[in-house]
């Protein structure tokens, strides 16, 4: 693979905190290697800003291997940038060429208030999980793991839903800022397993209720969430969530 260096123009969202208005600021970065990751390009920019005595750009990141779900940049209008099924940290600069202009924004959603620059508060996702995204089993109560065989296909489907990293790209991509893909992934993960069965109704009702309370928008079947999801979580999960929810509500399931 041919490696090369490039100069870029970056337009980045700056916002000191959630009490002041934000704005775009333009930066030039030079000699960026095509082998760098997108965040390493930001490291270079931040080192440059520190050297100039300016405030570096705040952005969330941690594992830098595409699994923790912390990184969260909206790049040229797409959550996590142009590559399919990729987090920002795994996007590499060979995507870009010399002279390109790149616009970088935070996740934009009422339920994800900006903390600083590109950093947003996603604690609403934790509260949705706390509303029912679990199996109520205390430590020490389990039977032998092989006492309950599970059809391989169901286990695989459940795993595919469970691979959601909770990054929020689905919300950022959705014109309604809906969290349906995130919520449905958890509902599907647990509904597909016998362990999740006893609580499936109350789980669906409570998680949807919490999602609404947090101020996420409604789903209008646009599908941008699936297209931008770094883990390829399928829209079928939303269909499943709708079935689970309708089933729970019409069977008169009490709220937990």
């Amino acid at each position: 693979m041919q490696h090369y260096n490039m100069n870029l123009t970056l337009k980045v969202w700056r916002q000191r905190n959630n009490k002041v208005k934000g704005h775009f600021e333009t930066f030039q970065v030079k000699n960026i290697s095509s082998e760098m990751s997108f965040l390493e390009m930001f490291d270079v920019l931040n080192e440059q800003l520190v050297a100039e005595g300016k405030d570096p750009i705040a952005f969330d990141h941690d594992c830098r291997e595409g699994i923790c779900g912390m990184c969260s940049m909206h790049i040229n209008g797409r959550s996590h940038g142009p590559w399919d099924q990729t987090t920002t940290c795994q996007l590499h600069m060979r995507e870009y060429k010399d002279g390109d202009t790149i616009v970088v924004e935070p996740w934009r959603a009422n339920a994800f208030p900006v903390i600083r620059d590109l950093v947003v508060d996603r604690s609403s996702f934790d509260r949705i999980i706390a509303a029912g995204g679990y199996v109520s089993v205390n430590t020490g109560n389990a039977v032998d793991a092989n006492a309950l065989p599970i059809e391989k296909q169901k286990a695989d489907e459940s795993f595919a839903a469970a691979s959601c990293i909770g990054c929020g790209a689905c919300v950022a991509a959705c014109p309604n800022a809906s969290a349906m893909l995130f919520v449905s992934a958890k509902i599907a993960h647990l509904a597909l397993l016998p362990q999740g069965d006893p609580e499936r109704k109350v789980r669906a009702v409570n998680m949807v209720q919490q999602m609404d309370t947090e101020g996420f928008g409604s789903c209008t079947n646009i599908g941008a969430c699936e297209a931008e999801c770094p883990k390829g979580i399928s829209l079928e999960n939303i269909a499943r969530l709708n079935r689970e929810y309708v089933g729970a509500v019409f069977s008169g399931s009490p709220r937990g």
Partner: protein
Amino acid sequence: MALNSKIPAGPIDAKWKTYKSTCKLVNPANKRQLEIIVVGTGLAGASAAASLGEMGYKVKAFCFQDSPRRAHSIAAQGGINAAKNYQNDGDSTYRLFYDTIKGGDYRAREGNVHRLAEVSASIIDQCVAQGVPFAREYGGLLSNRSFGGTQVQRTFYAAGQTGQQLLIGAYQALERQVALGTVEMYSRHEMLEVVKIDGKARGIIARNLVTGELERHFGHAVLLCTGGYGNVFYLSTNAMGSNVTAAWKAHRQGAFFGNPCFTQIHPTCIPVSGDHQSKLTLMSESLRNDGRIWVPKKQGDNRKPTDIAEEERDYYLERRYPAFGNLVPRDVASRAAKERCDAGYGVGSSKMAVYLDFAAAIERYGKIEANKQGKGNLDKASIIALGKDVVKEKYGNLFDMYAKITGENPYEVPMRIYPAVHYTMGGLWVDYELMTTVPNLYALGEANFSDHGANRLGASALMQGLADGYFVIPYTLGNNLADDIRTKAIPTDHPAFVAAEKEVSDRINRMMNIKGKESVESFHKRLGKIMWDKCGMGRNAKGLEEAIREIQALRKEFWSNVRIPGEVKEFNPELDKAGRVADFIELGELMCKDALHREESCGGHFREESQTEDGEALRDDEKFMYVAAWEFKGESQFELHKETLDYEVVHPSARSYK
């Protein structure tokens, strides 16, 4: 101070059973009065916080990430060991115990390791009950694979995302307790001091990373579940935020640091591509089940790997270690890769890499699949297409990650890999009950030193984290707190809290006011280079002595020339990082001192002066069969205490995988 490991008396397989049936208990009404602080929400922290919350304790849990679900346990790929013997291949609690002791090169405690092996089976049961979607066979039962240093298949997995699935399980259990009100969660908070009252840990000072404000939190006990310190090397497979700060503050408050130089260098990582590199990415050890590692037989061979014929390839692990082949433990595989590259056989543009090749596995799986589908006489291209599908199902996410980072297609050309810092076996010294040398201060998971000796076997970190959190601390904490039920919650205006907060605040202000010229990142890189060059895969007395001097000088420079932008009372990641790097610098010095004093090679610690004729690590059991527990005595002053290791069951021998 004499170290008491508090290993229960009796035969090895009765110690934990006896302990559990005789330890003191706390009744439910009293549990509700006892407050526990858990720092870190990885596998150890989340499982501990959830379990203690379920039991009725009042728990406060802290993490520096924006959500507990993001702790770096999430990135563990390959799997988790358990002595289930579902494969009927001769596994047992004893064998897992034995493999772990041997894998650790006879530098771990027998009592702890046996307990770990005993509870391993319960971990799998617990996780399945929570809905962790482990890989399954067509019959619906759980699937297993092999990891290094073993001859059985005892590793449970969920594709290449086992850590993620286990952590999500623990995180969900934790969020359930948050909803029930037994656990209060503090995200984007970093612990910056342990508060001691009458010699006992009674709380912490934490910084709210969003507002920059310092907070005081009381706890009857404090549990540090803060992971390892591999980022002292700057480049490692750890997350960017992984740090030693909580453990280091505890060390400065009197908690001894055990075997700090024991570092695991993982053999299969994507090689460094340039100076811009911010972290290294692991390619799971599970790949060594099916991938074959080789270099060309000719030095400096620049041909494409696919142009190098079978007879011109040196499968050096299979050649040197026929009994274990590509599945030798990590320390052995890493040194063997370094040896080949240093000798001029490395590949890729940097020549600091070896090949991990799946061509043979793809063809083998393709044939099996063709037979399964009743197509015995398929042409080679179709067989390979079938084989690629099988490999994709097993390792798809890892192959994708490799392709994104390198721009190469690993289904077509072999991966290039090289060793990288991955895990630290060293950590806070703890006794059998996981308590440090500071009463009421505990360390769980990678943050403690206890179970892996001088080298950890693959798929054992997840096992240890969850063992400590789900199955050990719920018993051992109660045994201690049963004597503390009369201690009322101490108000945080107590002078000890006030003094600790002032200490933290003064240090932050001192750092901010340096207003020097060099960035935090630059100091971190310089520290990492010293550590990797002189305290990395190969270590010698001269290099370590130089490293100690260089680190001391670096530290002076840091405290006179670091530049931290922004303000204290705001969201300021540069300031957060500055504190962590300052602690890494102090730790780096201790690691070099520990490595210098241990004049033997064992596990991941390879002293070049101590090797056999064919380049294998040479232990010195006469002089060094002990845990080195270091006490902080002041800046650059550490006093060595020794905990002698008694092997009652396994008799230490030269560790051979040949």
